[in-house]
């Protein structure tokens, strides 16, 4: 088992009242799954994803990741954990505008203290795999949305994560670009056994996954 959420609650205090963002979420994810989280705006999809990705905290409940109890871990260990095992893909790509494609790919490796020669090899490998070698010296603003997201996925993969968290990865793309990205996810999941959890609005995209989780008002339905 990759991760397990037990009775997760998250709330904010507003005018003396608790507004629940997540309410009693229980979730088990096995390695190699491809899960789609669906639900209307404000249902807590992104919050759940952030909690799984350890970018956000929760107020109650337990969270085990690879048999580590995340809820008892200190911030520093938590960040070590997600640095090691999780890759993120965002709706608006979130590439750094000041860095070239190549440098964007290299960045996560810097924080893992990987040696320069090894970094170069990994980046070259990734550029090759995604057929973007020709674009390695371009800046993100010089790429189309689909190409940017391709770089975004490549960046998420470069650290060899066990889990990829994708928050509406095709939200800003046209249908053809979406299709390409989803195919890529499917391939990664099938051929390399990478676990993927994606948030999506589109039924079509959700169908790529092996399991669909529906949220409404912070609750699993």
């Amino acid at each position: 088992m990759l991760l397990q959420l037990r009775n997760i609650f998250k709330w904010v205090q507003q005018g003396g009242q608790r507004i629940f963002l997540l309410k009693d979420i229980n979730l088990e994810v096995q390695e190699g799954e491809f899960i789609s989280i669906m639900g209307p705006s404000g249902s807590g999809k992104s919050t759940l994803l952030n909690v799984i990705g350890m970018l956000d905290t929760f107020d109650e409940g337990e969270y085990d990741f690879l048999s580590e109890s995340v809820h008892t871990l200190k911030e520093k260990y938590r960040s070590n954990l997600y640095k090691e095992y999780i890759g993120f893909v965002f709706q608006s790509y979130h590439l750094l505008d000041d860095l070239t494609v190549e440098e964007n790919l290299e960045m996560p490796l810097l924080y893992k203290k990987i040696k320069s020669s090894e970094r170069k090899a990994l980046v070259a490998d990734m550029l090759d795999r995604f057929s973007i070698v020709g674009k390695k010296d371009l800046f993100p603003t010089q790429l189309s949305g689909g190409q940017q997201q391709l770089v975004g996925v490549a960046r998420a993969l470069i650290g060899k994560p066990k889990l990829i968290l994708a928050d509406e990865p095709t939200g800003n793309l046209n249908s053809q670009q979406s299709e390409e990205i989803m195919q890529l996810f499917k391939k990664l999941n099938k051929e390399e056994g990478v676990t993927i959890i994606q948030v999506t609005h589109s039924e079509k995209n959700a169908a790529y996954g092996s399991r669909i989780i529906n949220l409404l008002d912070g609750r699993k339905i």
Partner: protein
Amino acid sequence: MFRNYLKVAWRNLIRNKSFSVLNIVGLSIGLTVFTLIVLWINFELGFDRFHENQERIYEVNNQYAIEGEIWTWNSTPKAMAPAIKKDYPEVDRVSRYYYDTPFLFSVDEKRIKATGTIVDPDFLHIFSFPLVQGSIESVLSDVNSVVITETFAKKIFGDKDPIGELVKIDNADSFKVTGVLKDLPDNTDFTFEFLVPWDYLIQKDWDDNNWGNNSVATYVKLKENVDFNNFSANIKTLRKNYDKGSPDMETLLYPYSRTYLYSEFENGKEIGGRIELIRMFGFIAAIILLIACINFMNLSTARSEKRAKEVGVRKVMGAPKKYLIYQFLGESMLISSIAALLAFVIILLVLPSFSNLVGKELSIDFTSKEFWLSAIGIILFTGMLAGSYPALYLSAFKPSAVLKGTFHKANTLITPRKVLVVVQFSVAIILITATLIITQQLEKVQDRQLGYAKDNLIYTFIEGDIEKNYGALREELLKSGAATSVTKTSSPITESWSNTWGIEWEGKNENDKTIILRLMADDAVVKTLGLELLEGRDMDLQKYPTDSTAVILNETSVALMGFEDPIGKIVNDNGKKWHVIGVVKDFVFNSPFQKIEPLVIEGAKGWFNVVHMKLNEANTTANNLATIERVYKNYNPEYPFNYDFVDGEYAKKFSDQQITSKLAGLFTLLTILISCLGLFGLASYMAENRIKEVGIRKVLGASVGTIVTLLSKDFLKLVGISILIAIPVSWYYMSNWLEDFAFRITISWWVFAIAGLLTLVIALITVSFQAVKAARANPVKSLRTE
């Protein structure tokens, strides 16, 4: 990793050109000012600190209680040095220093005037003025030996070896050059071009054993390992055995290294002196650098929304907070390095003019390790100071918040940034008021009624044959029509050379030891100097031969002596009876910044050093001077004709204050400039961040005017707070500053009003420039981008 940081930092700089320019220019102005002031302070602190045994060198001072107040001064009797040498074995060396005196040197047909003095042979053992030629043990051992500086030697002998050459001094005595001194450095109070042994003074019969005549400086060097506290207690009572007139006067040893910066005494206690000026400007230097750093902090944090995404992404990619802090600190280091480079260029360009302004020859020693170390230190320090807040602020962003796009903190001015703006503008306002008050004070003193007519008035020193030929000289000067009036005096009208508490008059309180200034004048003193006669008449030896023992009082001394009808009263001074023939209105004799002291002008029986001449206004000055020179050449052929204009000499009394005023003005301007650079940047970011709000308001019908007001209001409020903070602070400090001057302005409220208004207007212009731009933007465009 490091390369990556550098790359990102550099691309950031290039991408945000206006931000980078604002930051770098602001910081480099700050660094320039800071460095210039530090160079100046360094020079001042190093003043006369190069003497090898400086911790054992002392200046002999006197202390005496007069009217319950303790006075301290540094002129001593000529007999002091021999007494010290005889009675105090703790003293290694002791030397007198006669006042700096101009002497005429002649070699063959060459005549050169030089300023130098008479010292004991120990002088060169006490102070470290190294000899280039000659032996320190023997250079001053012969009566007719003279030691000269290298430059002076070149001037008088050219390339010839000066050692053993003969020179005639003052047309009277022949001296042999026995030593050549290395030129005195810029940073010493001593200015002599030559030294003559004390024996010469004895030979000329200028020596005396009068303990009441305090006229020379005395320096001592203690032996090693002498306990100073014991010794100074010991020497305190030196005068008991020698000075019949004032045996209770205390002898005080004052560390020589402190004389330049500290030697101002009040009631027996050191109260500072030049060091206060240095501290003040040191403080200003630090403040200006701080303000420049504040700019940097403000601009960097204002830009935070732009960089928030980067922080979020990096954190998600696994960057620990620590790394982000390094990254942002690295960026500010890069900026401070570039700023330092720019500052360095500016400094090289402006250093000569700045040296000129402060009147000191400042330079940078590029070969010194200290220079490079402190340069690197300043870059690191500035980078750290400026970068610390942005680094901590930016690195603390939560990725989940910034990446979701819900991050809009920078929309308004947040508190720390507000505080920083308030600090900047408070300082600016304080500096503006300070500049205004300093300028006002200076103007008031410059406009002060002098009490004499300084225009067209010149003076010359009595030298060579002038004393002998004075009568004829005077006659001819008057006859020639170049001078309308001539008088011989003891000192120039701009300098008081003599004072005493020994004057006695009828009804004087025995304990009254008020110091009275002395001026001697033989004839027509009121007419020549243009004094204002209130009672009685001018000195007129022709008509009243008894005027040789006449005295003219000023108002203050009439008040002191309590004379109801002063004319005809007798005062005793120097064992002579002087009869009062007139009273003049108070005039400025010493410092125009201080109150006027009691003064007596004694007649022809006094001693004389100076001739004052009122030039004839009917002729051109050049003609008058040519005529006078001709007459002088007749009666004093050996000497070059040298003269000084009284108005020029008087103007020199303001040089220190003028420097202060100019520097204050300059620093104020720069502070305002730096602050405005920061405000400009801040306003532009704010306008950018509020562009959506502006768009919505415009769509809903807001006019450009209301939007400009909306955007400017926040900033102006801050300036308002700054005004409230600055006024009491500056009032307090400037009142303190004015305390030093007896003749001073009262601070008026409009100074603060002007400073406040000025700052407000400058801030308004700076901010509204951006606000108007934002307000006029097309709302359709700004709303579409969302």
